[in-house]
């Protein structure tokens, strides 16, 4: 049954795990995961920069994979485990990447920072000591207009060393 009247589009109950917590929310099929996170669940840490997969500001981790949440439907998240920026830091502290971004001044306006930190956290899970080029290739899908990327690369390197200190 398709809603002819846009207002009463059929909502679906979606059950997912978000930042380690079981969550239920209502979503119209057309609402993206990004829209559900921000406007339904008020998790506004995930940002929208383009809505078509070209800027990375909306990146989240879904079932262990980095994805653009603007190109995933909310209803597709049923049964999935999702990590957003709000779930990166441990209780009462910061993730090494968050500390490194602050110490290296790797953000200016900060709108792209959540996306960069989520993306970089996935890189460091796969590659404990990435090179400058490997960091740049992995983060190529995250656009930043303020920093010129230099200090972001330095922050990821510092975080890698904090997580796996050189012998």
């Amino acid at each position, binding site marked *: 049954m398709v809603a002819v009247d846009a207002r009463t589009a059929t909502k679906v109950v979606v059950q997912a795990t978000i930042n380690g917590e079981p969550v239920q929310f209502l979503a119209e099929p057309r609402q993206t995961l990004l829209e559900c996170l921000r406007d339904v669940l008020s998790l506004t840490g995930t940002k929208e920069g383009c809505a078509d997969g070209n800027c990375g500001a909306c990146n989240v981790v879904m079932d262990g994979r980095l994805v653009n949440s603007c190109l*995933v439907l909310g209803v597709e998240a049923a049964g999935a485990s999702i990590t957003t920026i709000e779930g990166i830091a441990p209780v009462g502290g910061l993730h090494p990447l968050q500390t490194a971004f602050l110490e290296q001044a790797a953000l200016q306006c900060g709108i792209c920072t959540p996306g960069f930190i989520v993306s970089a956290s996935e890189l460091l899970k796969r590659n404990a000591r990435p090179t400058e080029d490997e960091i740049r290739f992995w983060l190529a899908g995250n656009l930043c207009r303020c920093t010129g990327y230099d200090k972001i690369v330095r922050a990821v390197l510092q975080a890698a060393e904090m997580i796996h200190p050189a012998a």
Partner: protein
Amino acid sequence: MDDFEYVRPGSVGEAVALLAEKPGRARAMAGGTDLLVQLKVGRRTLDRVVDVKGIAELNEIHVGSDGGITIGAAVPCHRVYDHPAIVAGFPGIVDSASIVGGIAIQGRATLGGNLCNGAPSGDSIPSLAVVGAVAVIAGPSGRREFPVSEFCTGPGQTVLGADELLVAIRLPAPPPRSFGHYLRFIPRNEMDIAVAGAGAWVALDEAGVVTAARVVLASVAPTPIEVPDAATAIIGTRGEATALEAASEAAKAAARPITDMRGTQAQRRHLSGVLTKRALAGAIARARGEHVPGAHEAHRVHASATH
């Protein structure tokens, strides 16, 4: 975005029935990285989206005893370039799968979706076509197979019927000493759509002479196009400069590019020659057992040192 009904069938039969019920108003979705963008900007409107990620068969990668591999239509790019057998047997396909969009896009986008989107610039289509890949299609009256090299019929148009579902892509067993290589040209180093692309595949005999070859170009015609003359120019040679040059000229002659915001006709025609030469050289080197890096093995030539 206009609303639509979202369904997630558990079997191929169920999916086919859901598509057949609304011909032209329902469409299969795997990664959705092309489809959702089209729906958002109104380039396509649908009553029903059939999410096929719930169908086991479409998520499988099956390696045959003969070395042939079948890749489910819903297998995302990251599982393709992380799969040892594909990396070993089909490096050209790994070249493509690792440059579709960025890392986040590759978490969702599939080779099946890239093929069904049928864009002339589809990065995976040339590298699948040159290895003789075959599309496994299911419809109301059963299954059929169709060569990838003829799958696209126009910009965004394919042979797939409105009531048909792409189930998998079958890669035939590669003959010995045979590999592919895919290169595209983009103004940036990532996150771009091919201004031009070239997929090449060669098989060598024990003496290192090319016994078989295929070249398919992207972004220089309404569909990806095969260039038989480029293949004949390289067959029987060892990939010397003159042979590569002849193949390059054949590619340029076959190209029918347009001018748009991504590139001019003259630029695309020229690039189709350059990329054919380089893709063939890469394929031949791989067939000889040399390691040829893809764009994802980032080796930008410079040191970032200040001094």
